[in-house]
């Protein structure tokens, strides 16, 4: 086995490798900038997306590759209106028409086929040398996109029927998408930015986000894959609930890793969390320093990464500084 896959496999098997595992979350936008390609093109064309992600990996040589165009691919495939920007991430303009809302067909709706094709191409390019993960949205986040953010968050406490309906629709969609990703050679990696500790209470997370995340994790496991889970914002008070989903890798935003480790115990694999602001605006020295601090705080069962995806315009030297911190 090649180094990257071997390192990740060892980590997952409970034998942290000597060489630390590292993956700054480089996704479509930063990779496109590196390759001097429009972000809008990388997010809509499979060949371009695969090519820029592959080129970024060749440049930095981190231990994973993530297929991620933007946060709205699933919602778009289910009928949401999306606005594309030439040089920035696409965003949601309108939720889908509510009548007749149903799960998308991953082989033909929206950009899901594009995501699957990019996954297949990267699998071809990378083979078994590097773990290939394909980003999917967590159920809570996708449901909030389907309902409309304010409508959804405003219903969370007093309209359980409405909220469940959107969650169930989102879940059904993700079940099909997960299966298609695995067929394409990817490992589904969950990001649930709206189930964030910055937005909802730990109680709401436990009631409405956790059960659905646990189901996604079970399905990913049933396909024979390991499961990663990223939650944005302040996740300290839900960190043990994140572990309760059964996910093998818990990726966290800007929180104190030493404290997170203390709450979780030594076994759980954490991933994170060099500040994205620092990666974008700091010096390579500062970034390297922050990365080494993460390595020290999180202990051996750890994937060194960024707090969220690497901002598009980050200086490449800063991304490199994270990779180098794991190698030295």
């Amino acid at each position, binding site marked *: 086995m090649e180094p990257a896959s071997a390192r990740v496999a060892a980590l997952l098997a409970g034998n942290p490798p000597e060489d630390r595992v590292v993956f700054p979350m480089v996704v479509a936008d930063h990779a496109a900038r590196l390759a001097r390609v429009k972000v809008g093109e990388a997010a809509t064309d499979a060949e371009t997306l695969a090519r820029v992600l592959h080129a970024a990996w060749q440049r930095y040589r981190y231990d994973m590759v993530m297929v991620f165009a933007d946060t709205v691919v699933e919602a778009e495939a289910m009928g949401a209106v999306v606005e594309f920007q030439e040089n920035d991430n696409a965003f949601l303009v309108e939720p889908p028409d509510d009548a007749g809302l149903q799960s998308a067909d991953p082989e033909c709706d929206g950009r899901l086929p594009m995501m699957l094709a990019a996954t297949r191409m990267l699998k071809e390019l990378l083979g078994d040398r590097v773990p290939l993960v394909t980003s999917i949205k967590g159920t809570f986040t996708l449901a909030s996109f389907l309902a409309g953010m*304010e409508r959804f*968050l405003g219903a*969370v*406490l007093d309209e359980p029927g409405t909220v469940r309906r959107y969650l169930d629709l989102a879940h059904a969609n993700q079940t099909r998408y997960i299966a298609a990703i695995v067929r394409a050679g990817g490992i589904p990696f969950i990001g649930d930015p709206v189930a964030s500790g910055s937005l909802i209470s730990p109680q709401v997370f436990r009631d409405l986000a956790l059960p659905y995340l646990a189901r996604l994790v079970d399905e990913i496991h049933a396909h024979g894959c390991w499961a990663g889970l990223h939650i944005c914002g302040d996740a300290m008070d839900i960190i043990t609930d994140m572990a309760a989903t059964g996910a093998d890798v818990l990726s966290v935003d800007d929180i104190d890793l030493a404290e997170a480790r203390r709450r979780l115990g030594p076994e759980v694999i954490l991933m994170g969390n060099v500040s994205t602001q620092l990666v974008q605006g700091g010096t390579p020295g500062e970034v390297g320093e922050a990365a080494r601090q993460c390595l020290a705080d999180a202990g051996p069962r750890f994937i060194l990464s960024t707090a969220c995806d690497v*901002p598009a315009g980050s200086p490449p030297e800063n991304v490199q500084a994270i990779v180098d911190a794991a190698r030295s």
Partner: protein
Amino acid sequence: MTDPGDLFALLAEAVAAMKPDRVANLARQVLERKLSPDKAITEGLAAGMRLVGEKYASKVYFVPEVLLASKAMYAGFDILRQALGDEPKRKGRVALGVVRGDIHDIGKNIVKVMVEAAGFEVVDLGRNVPVAEFVRAADQGVELVGISSLMTTTMPRMADVVKALDRRGLRPQTRVVIGGAPVNAMFAERIGADTWAPNAHSAVQAIEELLSAS
């Protein structure tokens, strides 16, 4: 029978407890007893939302709690407003929007709820708002423009808004407040905004200060 002050306190409590039906009931009692709807709004509903703002700032409440409490507040407001006859007296008109390229509008919406509860009229420009729309709002007479941005990549567009207001001769009479997680006092000063606020609670204070001074 409860005395009027107590009824207002109950209103505030019901708002803070996120109970739309209870708030509506109490608001109807205010009208039946011919108490001042104005006072019921400020000492009841707005006071309740202030409590909500405090609970949010100290992480007892989160976004869904604030949204449900605001549902409760509006349930009372809609009833009391009818008794005010004309549009209720407002402390001033404020436009709020998230800059172009940024769709993070949850923070802006929370600020909107709190600012409305404090008695201002809010013109909601929405998210992903081009510079020209901020300027148009100022042209049409809002006294203050509140600009939100959650991303370092879109923050510079706040400076563009201030510059455009300047060029149009709308500064300094149109006040500018900025906010959003990456914003700070230094940035506000650098781009020539009047001030900034780290959360919805202090946003209300900042706006009250700016507009009472002018």
